[in-house]
């Protein structure tokens, strides 16, 4: 007897079809899985055998062969448990194989016959739909995620016998219907609001500019100046996600196993803040079995690196490529995968190892120690950070002030308008934001008048700006002009941009 069940597997954040072929024939009793299974798939044998028996079926004492086609790609994870069990049940006639035609089956088995959730359901269902499959059987916990795919009939399963009863027509299958639009419309709001931040007006303004042009930011300041607090509020001033962006993020989260029914669709921009002990593979993605890293989890959103110099140097260097390309390519012997990683980098650091240099006499760091600390961030990485802003200490006076700051909603309106202007301007280019402008494009889109040129030249002469600041200043001035709704870059835009490049300046000492 032979049965073929449709299932799926992942490559990067895209799914592809896997056909699970089960054959049962006379011979010495055995149970073999072929088709490049990894350990989790090989172990499916034991789970399937026990789960089938505990669901009240006779497990055949025959020679069982399972093939996972295509046989040349490595199969991982426990998602093949359910299709294998389905194949066996079909072979012994416990279910009707015809009732599975045109369906995809995914799920991990537990020993009692229950069905457990698996990772990456969303991309696998998407790819199944593209292949013309219109119905899916997925674990209950994954059903909402699968139901995000319009045009797919989703049947949620809790156990193997429920599955068998549905297939045999003994139980009515109720497709899961999800009001995706309502889910998407549901609260884009962030838990945090900029109105809570007192003082630090210049940093808030810098973050607004950063959000408007999707510029990367480095905040430097003593402990307790509110760097983390402000970074956390950054998603609240970024424009709302579009549905496509939202699905793309959800796919990444799905692959990483971070999606369950309660939060099937990611509607808010994530804020990822990995600890500084993070490894390179966890940051950019990778591992023997490639998984998306923090940069991908921060796709279309914010990656916050607190205490930037404390991160391992090689981890920081690995950030350079995704910062440039907006995508991570992981190359392995058996194929390569790519994960989207278009994120906004927000980093914070102290001015010196003890944290108080320039702010208080408390600092006892030697100049040597300070320069070693600063040197942990390499020039090429610093080159990719457009905005460098200092956050001074907050004194009691401004903390106790009644005046609430501007709310995130207000700022978001301005940022959204700036985004719209940029989208319109770059509709014929392959970029979306000012931060992505190449030097050649800067010449085209950031023209300066005579007065502006003089001011900029003056600034370079008198303020000790480094040459690498030139293009960044123009990009920033462009963003500030966009925030202002001004078509031309004016003197005050340049003047403000100069204040956003503090680290470029060789200050007195």
């Amino acid at each position, binding site marked *: 007897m032979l049965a073929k069940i449709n299932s799926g597997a992942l490559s990067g954040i895209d799914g592809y079809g896997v056909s699970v072929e089960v054959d049962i024939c006379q011979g010495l009793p055995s149970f073999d899985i072929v088709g490049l299974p990894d350990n989790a798939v090989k172990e499916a044998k034991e789970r399937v055998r026990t789960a089938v028996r505990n669901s009240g079926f006779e497990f055949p004492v025959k020679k069982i062969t399972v093939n996972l086609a295509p046989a040349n790609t490595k199969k991982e994870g426990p998602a093949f448990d359910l299709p294998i069990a389905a194949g066996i049940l079909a072979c012994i006639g416990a279910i009707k194989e015809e009732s599975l035609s045109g369906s995809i089956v995914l799920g991990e088995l537990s020993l009692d016959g229950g069905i457990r959730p698996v990772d990456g359901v969303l991309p696998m269902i998407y790819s199944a739909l593209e292949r013309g499959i219109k119905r899916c059987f997925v674990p209950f916990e994954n059903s909402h995620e699968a139901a995000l795919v319009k045009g797919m009939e989703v049947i949620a399963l809790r156990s193997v016998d429920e599955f068998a009863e549905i297939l045999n027509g003994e139980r009515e299958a109720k497709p899961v219907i999800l009001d995706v639009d309502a889910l998407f419309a549901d609260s884009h709001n962030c838990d945090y609001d900029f109105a809570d931040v007192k003082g630090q*007006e210049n940093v808030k303004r810098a973050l607004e500019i950063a959000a408007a042009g999707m510029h990367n930011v480095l905040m430097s*300041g003593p402990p307790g100046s509110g760097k983390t607090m402000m970074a956390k509020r950054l998603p609240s001033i970024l424009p709302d996600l579009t549905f496509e962006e939202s699905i793309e993020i959800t796919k990444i989260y799905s692959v990483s196993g971070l999606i369950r029914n309660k939060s099937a669709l990611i509607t808010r921009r994530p804020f990822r803040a990995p600890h500084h002990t993070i490894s390179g593979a966890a940051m950019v993605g990778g591992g023997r079995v490639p998984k998306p890293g923090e940069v991908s989890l921060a796709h279309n959103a914010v990656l916050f690196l607190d205490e930037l110099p404390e991160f391992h140097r090689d981890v920081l260097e690995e950030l350079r490529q995704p910062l440039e390309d907006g995508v991570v390519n992981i190359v392995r012997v058996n194929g390569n995968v790519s994960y989207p990683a278009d994120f906004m980098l927000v980093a914070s650091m102290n001015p010196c190892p003890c944290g108080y240099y320039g702010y208080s006499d408390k600092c006892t760091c030697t100049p040597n120690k300070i*320069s070693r600390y600063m040197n942990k961030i390499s020039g090429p990485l610093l080159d990719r950070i457009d905005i460098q802003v200092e956050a001074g200490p907050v004194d009691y*006076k401004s903390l106790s002030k009644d005046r609430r700051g501007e709310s995130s909603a207000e700022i978001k309106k301005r940022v959204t308008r700036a985004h719209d202007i940029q989208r319109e301007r770059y509709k014929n280019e392959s970029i979306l934001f000012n931060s992505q402008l190449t030097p050649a494009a800067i010449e085209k889109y950031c023209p300066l008048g005579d007065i502006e040129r003089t001011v900029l030249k003056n*600034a370079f002469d008198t303020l000790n700006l480094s040459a690498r600041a030139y293009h960044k200043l123009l990009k920033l001035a462009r963003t500030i002009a966009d925030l202002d709704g001004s078509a031309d870059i004016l003197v005050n835009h340049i003047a403000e941009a100069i204040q956003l490049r503090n680290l470029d300046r060789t200050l*007195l000492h």
Partner: protein
Amino acid sequence: MADYSEKNYIMWLSSVMGIPVDVRRALIEHFGSAEEVWRAKAKDIVNSEILSENRADMLIYSRGAYDIDRELDKLYRLGADFIVPGDGIYPVQLTAMHEAPLGLYMLGNMPSDTMPMVSIVGSRRVSDYGAMVCTKTAGELAGCGITVVSGMAMGIDALAHKGAIDAGGKTIAVLGTGIDVCYPSVNRNLYNEIISAGCLLSEFPFGTAPNKFNFPYRNRIIAGLSKVTVVVEAAEKSGSLITAMSAIENSRTVMAVPGNITSALSRGCNELIKNGCAPVTCTEDILEALDIRLNKKDLKNSEKILIPLAEDEKMLYDCIGYEPITVDELISRSDMDAKEAMCLLTMLELKGCIRRLSGQKVVRSL
């Protein structure tokens, strides 16, 4: 062998480590010249009883180990010079001090001694205040044609050199290492700039590493080169106080820049003032100590260039005093929004009315 000059033998004699300068000088006096010390019989050196047995052995050994040709070759390749008293380059001021070095390695050009020199010293750790005063003072002195002498260390030293160079003046750095060693290495640019704006001096042979016991010797040369030593910022136990002491011992004038009595970085300076050193409140104080009378307009840098400020610039400018203020506080004090204030700050900075300090602070330009 015969074509070496006395200068070359002095170079050898001053390279023998562990012998105080006055002992070396006594050796030369005893034997008549450095060349005679080189040629003297070992027995005579020991019998002269100027040196202890160990030191005598060391001296005798070094005669065999020292290769004058090789050292001259190094001098030549580096483009350096070895100067000794009486050769017309060796600063006269220095010969007047006791324990004056027998000779100095020199890289660059010795500024003419028609104008006096002023030493500016201070600690490596600097406050914003110290940095500002140091740069300004050095710049103004250099603007009057005075050579600024310091030690090319980090902090005040480097700022003093920088201030003088930026003002287009002359500067001398006295090193505690060999003249071919740039220490600290972050001052590599400064090292090169000093060579073209004056000279580097060192009494230590080529390749001498920055040993901490070399620096007090270096400090006495800094003090000896100038009539006036200015201590800009020094903590309680700062190396610059050694410079000040040796200046006093050689009856040179020591002046100190007063600081906040609460500031640890100014404690040494304030102590000096308490003990009778004259305070520096402006560059003219130093000029007066040098007996130089200049018209006000000669102090180029202090000339305030009054640029007309726009209304709003004026408003922000009025909120900034001589006490550093953080940008954040400034914004709340001036009641402007961040956007406006940031833009005005740049304009004020471009007009030279204010200065940006580290730690998000601004201050009115001196």
